[in-house]
């Protein structure tokens, strides 16, 4: 009866022997318990394979009363774990049943005392239920290491929520990774910024910067330039960005930029590396219809911010400058494209009344005020 029932569920003969031999209880007692347990867990959507895995991982579950199991699950539900989370915890960490409800409660409260929200804790424990049992003082030491290093509590919580393996990780690994970043040239605050944004770098390979940017180094970027780029835009270290770097640089070459140009513009505006090739090409090709290619490239080099502006923003300005018959050389001197159109229109209106020197349209605000003694707010209100 015992063997047939278990074979029916899907146990192999060897597995049946494990179950039979783990305790001194008779087969009939074990069978009775297994049937009750099986029925209970089946009602909670645990399939046969999962059931087998649970009982083989932690055979003592077979001796637990169903009421006791329900109590443990209820403890989790009271905290905020939904039914699915609780059952998943049981599937992935059957040892939870060896932990008393009081201990579960105490452990969850300890995470709250550290500053984790209930949602964080549910996420962490659902993925790493063994944290309910491990040495909490060791977890706290790692947490405190980050705070002492200079991470804000908010970022520390975010890091540990995203990478809860850090709780269990040897602290020397984290220290070594931080030292690796330091040896490359990042300051402590850079390291905090970068790893707060991309926490899994703390557990990554020590040559990550060079690995991820080997193409850029071959392309011609110097280490120092790369460090500055990463400091300005650490998100480039994320897989989704660095994997496409090759294509993006080739796209810029295809458009007509030289390698030196590309190194210059990206050093000035690393955000270029977040824009897709289509985004950049479409804008470039549309502008090609109204601006000569050499002039357009010159414009982008003079003004790397241009890569980010929406096409409409650029076109509106160019169309207005053409309308007021501004010399093309002013448009190519791309800094003029930085100025907000609203301000340029207001200044043009003002200058057309007071002064014919339209070269002064693009003076920085304080220079314009100094020359004409009129502030931007007055210009925009037309109050002159």
């Amino acid at each position, binding site marked *: 009866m015992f063997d047939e029932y278990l074979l029916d569920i899907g146990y192999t003969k060897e597995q049946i022997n494990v179950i039979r031999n783990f305790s001194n209880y008779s087969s009939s007692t074990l069978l009775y318990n297994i049937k009750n347990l099986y029925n209970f867990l089946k009602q909670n959507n645990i399939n046969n394979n999962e059931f087998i895995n649970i009982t083989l991982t932690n055979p003592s579950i077979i001796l637990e009363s169903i009421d006791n199991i329900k109590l443990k699950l209820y403890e989790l539900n009271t905290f905020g774990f939904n039914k699915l989370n609780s059952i998943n915890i049981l599937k992935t960490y059957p040892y939870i049943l060896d932990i008393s409800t009081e201990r579960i409660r105490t452990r969850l409260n300890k995470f709250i005392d550290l500053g984790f929200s209930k949602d964080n804790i549910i996420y962490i424990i659902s993925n790493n239920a063994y944290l309910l049992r491990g040495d909490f003082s060791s977890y706290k030491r790692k947490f405190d290491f980050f705070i002492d290093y200079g991470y804000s509590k908010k970022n520390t919580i975010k890091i540990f929520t995203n990478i809860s393996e850090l709780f269990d990780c040897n602290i020397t690994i984290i220290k070594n990774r931080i030292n690796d970043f330091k040896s490359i040239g990042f300051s402590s605050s850079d390291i905090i910024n970068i790893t707060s944004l991309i926490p899994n770098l703390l557990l990554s390979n020590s040559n990550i910067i060079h690995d991820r940017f080997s193409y850029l180094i071959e392309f011609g970027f110097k280490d120092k330039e790369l460090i500055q780029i990463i400091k300005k*835009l650490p998100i480039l270290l994320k897989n989704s960005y660095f994997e496409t770097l090759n294509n993006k640089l080739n796209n810029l070459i295809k458009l007509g930029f030289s390698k030196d140009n590309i190194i210059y513009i990206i050093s*000035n505006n690393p955000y270029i590396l*977040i824009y897709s090739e*289509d985004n950049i090409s479409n804008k470039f090709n549309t502008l090609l219809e109204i601006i000569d290619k050499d002039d357009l490239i010159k414009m982008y080099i003079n003004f790397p911010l241009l890569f980010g502006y929406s096409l409409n923003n650029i076109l509106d300005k160019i169309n207005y400058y053409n309308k007021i018959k501004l010399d093309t050389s002013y448009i190519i001197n791309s800094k003029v494209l*930085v*100025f907000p159109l609203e301000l340029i229109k207001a200044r043009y209106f003002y200058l057309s009344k007071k002064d014919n020197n339209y070269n002064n349209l693009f003076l*920085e605000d304080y220079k314009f005020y100094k020359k004409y003694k009129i502030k931007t*707010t007055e210009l925009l209100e037309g109050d002159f």
Partner: protein
Amino acid sequence: MDGLIRFGFTIEEINILMDSNEDISLISDNSVNEIIKLLKDNNCSINTIKNIFICNPFVITNNIIDTAKLINKLKELGFTNINLLLDSNPYILNISDKELEKLYNKKKDEGLKSSEIIDFISYNNVI
């Protein structure tokens, strides 16, 4: 995404945003509406907001409280036309209020007057 569509972004523009910042797909409409409201409250026009988002798609997923703090710091330091500043330099929204103050003080120590510092930040990618 509905928030962005209702605001006037085309599907193509939303794809551009998501290409640059994959986290946009995780953001709620409520969060999108909050950042749009914050920018509108600072007199940013629809076109300016669109330019800000396209240029700097991280604005959409940045913490709104941090963005509001930054804008308040800009006002405290003497920036009067936040809409014009953000039209010129959308990337400024990625720095913290503390970083802005640090930058401001650094330029002050270099001998720049307040109006010169404001212009420096307005018309240069200081990030």
